[in-house]
């Protein structure tokens, strides 16, 4: 159904779909994909050759055989596994907390009429507009005051529930969770939490997949906040460790590139696993705004 509609307004939007036009469009798209993916290819090339190769003219355009050697150098020079571990913990725990708290709040907002619901939701939307960088300094001071500066708590707790996720999940819950189903559950004696856990959550799955991947990616890639708050140089996230590696060994390109590759790969794998669902939901979210 959707595909049919796409097809029929597609031809119209672009104009006449002659054979040459179609081929030209496909060639243009392929070129675009090449540009889009080239930096990754180039990263692989640089991570698998020596620094001399990187600096040589004409540049070496094919991958070499130094990848393992360069990766071993990365592990040797920075505490790669500690920072990888930190990042994995922050991204995983942070994502699970966001999924739980956001869907729970969205469930209440979408399906329960409690006094003050409208006002509270309005406040939630208003807080969503505040830019994060506005209070970078006091956020850091707050963390230092709690004694959390330099700990993973500082990276996980403040974002454990967020306005974007609640807003987005609520939109989803309103459309996808029939009241009849909840009524049936109530007749069976299920309370709020059991209705949430056994009826709502399974139906939220597609929305949770989107929010989960989105949150995981943002937590994995976050840079300015860990840079500010992870005050102990031995205990940082992957992004900060990579930036430090780049500073400390900036003449040793090949090793820095191997580190960059090692920090990018796990995320690309996660993304490719959930990509289809994610992109469908991303598109749906944008048009509903």
């Amino acid at each position, binding site marked *: 159904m959707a595909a049919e*509609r*796409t097809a029929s*307004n597609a031809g*119209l*939007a672009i104009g006449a779909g002659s054979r040459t036009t*179609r081929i030209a469009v*496909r060639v*243009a*798209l392929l070129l*675009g994909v090449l540009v889009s993916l080239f*930096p990754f290819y180039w990263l692989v090339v*640089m991570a698998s050759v020596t620094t001399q190769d990187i*600096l040589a003219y*004409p*540049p070496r355009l094919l991958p070499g055989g130094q990848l393992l050697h360069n990766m071993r150098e990365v592990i040797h020079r920075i505490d790669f596994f500690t920072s990888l571990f930190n990042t994995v913990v922050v991204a995983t725990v942070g994502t699970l907390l966001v999924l739980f708290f956001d869907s729970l*709040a969205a*469930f209440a907002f979408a399906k329960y009429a*409690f006094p003050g*619901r409208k006002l*509270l939701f309005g*406040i939630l939307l208003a*807080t969503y507009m505040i*830019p994060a*960088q*506005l*209070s*970078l*300094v*006091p956020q850091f*001071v*707050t963390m230092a005051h709690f004694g959390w500066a330099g700990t993973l708590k500082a990276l996980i707790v*403040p*974002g*454990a*529930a967020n306005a974007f996720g*609640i807003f987005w999940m609520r939109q989803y819950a309103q459309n996808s969770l029939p009241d009849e189903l909840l009524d049936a559950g109530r007749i069976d*004696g*299920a*309370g*709020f*939490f*059991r209705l949430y856990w056994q009826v709502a959550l399974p139906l939220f799955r597609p929305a949770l997949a989107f929010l989960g991947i989105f949150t995981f990616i943002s937590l994995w*890639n976050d840079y*300015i906040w860990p840079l*500010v708050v992870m005050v102990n140089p031995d205990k940082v996230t992957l*992004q900060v460790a*990579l*930036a430090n590696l780049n500073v400390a060994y900036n003449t040793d390109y090949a090793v820095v*590139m191997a580190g*960059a590759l090692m*920090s*990018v790969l796990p*995320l690309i794998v996660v993304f490719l696993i959930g*990509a*289809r669902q994610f*992109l469908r939901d*991303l*598109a749906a979210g*944008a*048009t509903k705004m």
Partner: protein
Amino acid sequence: MAAVAQTSSAADVTEPVRARAPRGRLRRHLPSYAAISPYYLLFAVFGAFPVGFSLYLSFQDWDGIGDMKFVGFRQYYWLLHDSVFWHALLNTFEIWFLSTVPMLLLALVLAFLLHSQTRFSAAWRVAYFIPNVTSMVAMTIVFGSVFAQAGLANSLFKAVGADGVGWLTSALGIKSAIAIMIIWRWVGYNALIFLAGLQAIPTELFEAARVDGANSRQLLFRVVVPQLRPVILFAVITSTINGLQIFTEPQVLFYSDDPGTAGGPGQEGMTIVLYLWQKSFNDLQFGYGAAMGWLLFAVIALFAIINWRLVSGSGRDDRPGIPLGKETGRGR
């Protein structure tokens, strides 16, 4: 959570009896309040309090360790007389302009091209979206090497006999290099958003317009663009908010042990957030950093409003609606 679950099931079962008494009513809604409370608690501690505190801080002189000294509006006064701040503001606007305009135009074209493809549509989307998924730090390092004096970009120039460009040394070079990174990262993302908007346009609109003899040009400007307006507005606003907070690219590009190199040669890559970070966490001028945060907020708010006006102001109706569309179609 077990406690919440217990309370809730008890409350729900006995609902009709309890509902009469005010205390029972509260008890009945308790699970809902408990469910939404984590966000508000977290926001109070890690959102609202810091925002209030930053306003207070912006009137103080404080290095984070010693005593605070009240200085009134002086931080703002110094800020407005700080040439680096103005330079950073200008740089931020220039980079924002150099990146956002080509990015949104490319994304729009890309969305149309993608829209015409009925095969492999998922593969196309994944390929174009991947840049947005990857770590900015890692990719900035890659681009930094591509744009180095003897990097790939200049090697290409050399291969065709052209002079090299001072990508990381000249004013325009630095801004273009950062803008290219931003464009690369965000074109696919915005194209997918535009694509979703395109796919949401009802086919009836096209048919009606075609029956009325509209050509492709008229279809584009009379049907597609007006229908896309809300989506374009969304993309413009988010690009503005993100674009005015550029930090990672210039920070990583010119990061070194020496804080003096921040922003690169001539500080041409110094952006507001980078300057805020440097003043706060290198120079430990917390009050100054807080004041800068508020000015940044004001600038972003102003820009978001201007954009909103520009993009939505000229339209008669933003909402996709078949009745209106059909009417328009017949009218022409």
